[in-house]
């Protein structure tokens, strides 16, 4: 970490930051540049999974009727997802999906939050692979739920054939198919990835930009201070984006499951 600060102060960091900055050196083998099996991202994912498991186990180990502070915290997270996402989007039938949504919400929230937690400072979700897998899970889930609820033929009939006169159906069916089965998982993954990628890039630009100006010309020092103040402001904005994107990801997954469960008129 201090090595990084020295690099910055000596002006050795490349200024404009590039996509290369998202590929961190390997942890095992240490420092290798072409091995991506165990990197900081792998470590962060395992930490996120571990923290969530331990948190919910510890807070709900001995449930009390009058909850302790920790139990209250875990219950309010679960209660929020259950009431404000599952039940709001899907209705009473949504309660059975609440555990999945809570897990999804907490995992996305925590991995997003790594973007601004000191020492982590980058979110695994700024690599498309992680949001893509989460989107695939939601995609398989809503299709599976729909097929199980309606049966294979009825589900696809319901998903593909909108209530419209027969003569415009040839126009509408390709749009429905594309929108439901291709755009949905794709947009789910890209929305999360792009937000986290852009957030990290912005912070890099303003942090490194400050150093770049400081090293270029002493007269630019006041402006580099402005740049770092912007970094602080953008970190606060990033905090908002982190929470919002975790919420949006979960709400959209819920919305797709709701669509798969919906009855025909």
């Amino acid at each position, binding site marked *: 970490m201090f090595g990084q600060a020295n690099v910055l102060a000596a002006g050795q960091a490349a200024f404009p930051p590039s996509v290369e900055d998202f590929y961190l050196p390997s942890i095992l083998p240490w420092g290798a540049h072409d091995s991506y099996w165990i990197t900081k991202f792998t470590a962060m994912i395992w930490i996120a999974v571990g923290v969530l498991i331990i948190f919910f186990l510890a807070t709900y180990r001995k449930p009390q009727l009058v909850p302790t502070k920790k139990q209250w915290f875990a219950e309010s997270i679960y209660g929020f997802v259950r009431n404000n996402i599952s039940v709001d989007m899907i*209705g009473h039938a949504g309660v059975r999906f609440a555990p999945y949504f809570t897990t999804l919400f907490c995992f996305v929230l925590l991995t997003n939050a790594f973007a601004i937690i000191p020492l982590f400072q980058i979110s695994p979700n700024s690599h498309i692979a992680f949001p893509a897998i989460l989107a695939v899970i939601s995609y398989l889930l809503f299709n599976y739920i729909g097929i199980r609820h309606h049966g294979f033929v009825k589900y696809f009939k319901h998903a593909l054939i909108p209530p419209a006169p027969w003569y415009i159906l040839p126009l509408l069916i390709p749009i429905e198919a594309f929108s439901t089965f291709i755009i949905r998982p794709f947009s789910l993954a890209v929305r999360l990835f792009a937000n986290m990628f852009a957030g990290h890039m912005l912070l890099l630009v303003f942090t490194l930009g400050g150093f770049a100006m400081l090293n270029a010309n002493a007269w630019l020092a006041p402006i580099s201070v402005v740049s770092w103040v912007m970094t602080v402001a953008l970190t606060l904005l990033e905090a908002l984006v982190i929470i919002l994107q975790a919420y949006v990801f979960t709400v959209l997954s819920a919305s797709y499951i709701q669509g798969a469960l919906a009855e025909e008129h």
Partner: protein
Amino acid sequence: MADDQTPRPSGAPDDVPPGAGQGWTALSYLIAGMLVWGFIGWLVDQWLDTGGIATGIGFVLGMAGGVILVIRRLGTPT
């Protein structure tokens, strides 16, 4: 946590996705409409060598289709 299963007023799922879902659904229909029929139009262009006319027609058709879908799927049922 899960033992409080009192019924909520929201009731059974219905056909119209609520809130945020509705907005994203409408947006994805409009974009999908243009992309799908624009692409089909482009394919026709390549096939018949019509120099972009078919792509344009495809885009307009796709937009119309997207609008129809939004009205049919999300409009207030009468």
